[in-house]
C-alpha cells in the first residue's frame, strides 16, 4: 500500500472487511456449524451439554451486565462498563483457562471474572466506589480492573517471565481492546514476550470502538497482523463465536504450556452498548452499523445452533433464565447491602510498612473528625 493511500482518511469505512474467511469461525451468525480442519480438533471434546453450558454462561453474564446497568441508572453504582456483545469473546476465552493460570484484565472483563468464580457483589464493588479492587487477585488468580489502557499487558508478560523461571506450565493471559494496541505498553509487552519466549497470551477484544474512536484510527491493517512483526504468532477469530474463541484460546494455551511462547489473539467483536454508562454512542455511530452487528449477536447464533440440535428445549430455556435472574438478584442484594468503607480507611494500605509521615496525617485527621463530635456535644449542652 502506498503512503498517500494510507494518509487519505482515518475513517472507519476504509477498514478491511472483517468478515468471512478473514477469521476463524466455527458457528456462523445463523447458527450453522462450519467445519475448520485446523481448529475443530481443539473443540472435539465439547459436547452439546457443554455447548449449552457455554450458552448459559453467556446469558448469565449478559444478565449481570443488564442488572449492573440498571443499578447504575438507579444510583447504586457510580459507573458501569458494559460488556454487551462481547459475551462469546469473554466466555470462550475465560472457559479455556486453568485454575493456576493468571488473568490480567482491563476494566471490561466482568464476564471473565464470572468464569473465575468471583463473588457477585465483588464484581460491582469497584463501580459502586467502595474500593479500587473488588476481589483478592490471588483468590481468583485474576488481577482487578486495570484502568490505565494497556498497562496490564506488561504485567502479564512479567508474570509469565516468573512462570518460566519457576518451570511451571501455567499461562498468563491479558485482555485489552483495540484502542490499547496503540499504547506503547502493549507494543513493549510484545517485544519482551517475544524476546524471552514467555507463556503469555495477548487477547485483544477488537470491539470496533475506543469510546468514540473507530478502530480505523488505531490501525490501518488488521490488528492481528501486527503481532507477527514482533515474532509472535497471531490468530484472528470471530469474537462473537464462543466455540471459535474457545478453540483459538486452547490452541494458544497449548503453545504457551509446551514452551512455544506467546500468542496474539484478535477476537473480532462489537461493543453493542456504550463505552460506559456515562457515554452516549448515538453521537458517533449510526443505527445501520448497530443493526448490522445485532444480526451477528453471539448469543442468538448459539441459541440457533442448540435449537437445531434439539438441545435448547423450553425447559432448558426456563432454567437458564431462572439461573440468570437468580444471579442478578444475588448481585443486586450484595450491591445494595454492601457496607460503606469507614472514613479512616482512606489511609489504609498506602504502604505495607509503617510510615511516620503518613501516620502523622492520619492521626491529625482523626483528631479533626473527633473535633466535630466535641462541637456537637458542646452545642447540645448549650
Amino acid at each position, binding site marked *: 500500500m502506498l503512503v498517500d493511500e494510507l494518509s487519505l482518511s482515518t475513517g472507519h469505512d476504509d477498514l478491511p472487511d472483517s468478515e468471512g474467511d478473514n477469521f476463524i469461525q466455527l458457528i456462523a451468525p445463523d447458527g450453522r456449524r462450519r467445519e475448520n480442519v485446523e481448529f475443530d480438533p481443539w473443540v472435539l471434546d465439547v459436547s452439546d451439554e457443554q455447548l449449552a453450558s457455554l450458552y448459559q454462561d453467556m446469558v448469565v453474564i449478559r444478565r449481570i451486565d443488564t442488572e449492573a446497568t440498571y443499578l447504575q441508572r438507579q444510583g447504586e453504582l457510580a459507573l458501569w462498563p458494559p460488556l454487551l456483545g462481547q459475551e462469546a469473546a469473554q466466555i470462550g476465552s475465560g472457559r479455556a483457562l486453568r485454575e493456576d493460570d493468571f488473568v490480567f484484565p482491563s476494566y471490561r472483563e466482568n464476564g471473565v471474572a464470572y468464569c473465575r468464580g468471583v463473588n457477585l457483589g465483588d464484581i460491582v464493588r469497584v463501580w459502586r466506589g467502595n474500593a479500587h479492587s473488588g476481589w483478592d487477585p*490471588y483468590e481468583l488468580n485474576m488481577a482487578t480492573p486495570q484502568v490505565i489502557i494497556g*498497562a496490564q499487558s506488561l504485567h502479564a*508478560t*512479567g508474570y509469565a517471565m*516468573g512462570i518460566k523461571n519457576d518451570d511451571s506450565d501455567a499461562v498468563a493471559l491479558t485482555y485489552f481492546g483495540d484502542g490499547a494496541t496503540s499504547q506503547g*505498553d502493549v507494543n513493549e*509487552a510484545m*517485544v519482551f514476550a517475544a524476546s524471552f519466549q514467555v507463556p503469555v497470551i495477548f487477547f485483544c477484544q477488537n470491539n470496533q470502538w475506543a469510546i468514540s474512536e473507530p478502530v480505523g484510527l488505531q490501525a490501518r491493517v488488521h490488528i492481528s497482523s501486527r503481532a507477527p512483526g514482533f515474532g509472535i504468532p497471531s490468530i484472528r477469530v470471530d469474537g462473537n463465536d464462543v466455540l471459535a474463541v474457545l478453540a483459538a484460546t486452547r490452541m494458544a494455551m497449548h503453545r504457551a504450556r509446551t514452551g512455544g511462547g506467546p500468542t496474539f489473539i484478535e477476537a473480532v467483536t462489537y461493543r453493542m452498548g456504550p463505552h460506559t454508562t456515562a457515554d452516549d454512542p448515538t453521537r458517533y455511530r449510526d443505527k445501520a452499523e448497530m443493526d448490522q452487528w445485532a444480526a451477528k449477536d453471539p448469543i442468538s447464533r448459539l441459541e440457533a445452533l442448540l435449537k437445531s440440535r434439539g438441545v435448547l428445549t423450553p425447559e432448558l430455556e426456563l432454567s437458564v433464565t431462572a439461573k440468570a435472574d437468580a444471579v442478578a438478584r444475588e448481585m443486586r442484594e450484595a450491591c445494595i447491602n454492601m457496607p460503606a468503607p469507614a472514613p479512616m480507611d482512606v489511609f489504609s494500605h*498506602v504502604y505495607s510498612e509503617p510510615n511516620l509521615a503518613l501516620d502523622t496525617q492520619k492521626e491529625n485527621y482523626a483528631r479533626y473528625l473527633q473535633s466535630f463530635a466535641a462541637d456537637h456535644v458542646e452545642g447540645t449542652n448549650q
Partner: protein
Amino acid sequence: MSTMTFGRAINAGLRKALEDDPKVILLGEDIGKLGGVFRVTDGLQKDFGSHRVVDTPLAEAGIMGCAVGLAYRGYRPVVEIQFDGFIYPAFDQIVCQVAKLHYRTQGKVTMPITIRVPFGGGIGSPEHHSESPEAYFTHTSGLRVVAVSNPQDAYSMLRQAIASNDPVLYFEPKRRYHIKGEVTEHPEPGNGLALGSAQVVTRGGDITLVTYGPLVRTALDAATAAADDGVSVEVIDLRSLSPIDFDTVETSVRKTGRLVIAHEASQSGGLGAEIATTITERCFNYLEAPPVRITGFDIPYPPSKLESHHLPDLDRILDGVDRALGRQNSLSAWERDRDDH
C-alpha cells in the same frame, strides 16, 4: 569490614541479596555481560545466570511493567534505570502501578520493587544524564525514596530497600561512584541505621545544613571551611527523602535556630520547600532566621560546560550559610540598596 568504592559496595549489596533470596531478580539495560554502564553489576550475570540478572530490551516502561508482573508472581525485582533522565518512559508504570497496587488491592498485592537510579550531575555528560528527578517520586504516595551518600549506606540501604515490601526508589550519586569507604557487610538485610532515618554526620551548634546524595560530601567540606571561619555547622544527611525524618532535623534546628537546605534538583516544588515549610511549622519559635535553600536553578539541566554554575558547590553553600547567619553575603549589598529606596 573492608574498604571499597561506592560502586563496589552496591555490587556487594546486590550479590548478597541474590545469594540470600532466590526471588531477587535484576532487570536492566546492559547489566549483564557489560556489568552496567557504570560496572555496578559487574560479574553478577556470570555468577547468577541470565535468568536472574536479565539484560532487557531498551524500553523502560517495559522493564518497569514486567517488574510489576514479576512482583505479582512473588519475585523481588531490582530494576536498574541506566541514567536519571531515562526514567520518564517508566513514569506511568511507577506512578500508576508500582506506587498504587498495594493501596488498590487493599494490601493483597505487594510491590517489593527496588528501582536503582544513578542520579545527579558533575560528570560532564550530554543532556539527560545528569538530572535529579527525586521530587517527582517523593510527591507520589506509595513509594519510598532514598538517596545514598557513602559506601556503607550504599550497601546497607540497598539491602534494606530490597528487603522492604514497599517499592523503593534508590538514588545513587553517580559522581561519587569512585569514592572509597569502610563497609561492614551486614549479614542480615535489616542491620544498620533504619532505612527511614536521617543521620547527623557532623555535629555543630550554629547552623543546621540539610542535604542528601552527592552534596553530602560538599556539605562536609563546607562545614570544615566554615569551622575555619569560626562557624559550627551541623550537617544532616537526609538519607530517606520519602518519608523524611523530620524529628532529626527538628531536634537540630531547635538547637541551632538556623537552617540551610541544599540539593542539586531545581528549587521550585523541590524537597527544600517541603523541609523549610515543615520545619517552620514545627519550630517557628526557635528560628533565628528564615530557612535558606541552595539548589539547582529552575532550568533544564544545562550543557556540561555550564553545569558548575548550576550545581550548588562549596562556595554557594557557604554563601547560604552566611545568609542564614545574617552575615555579609552575596545579596547583602543588593538588599541594602533595595531597603534604602
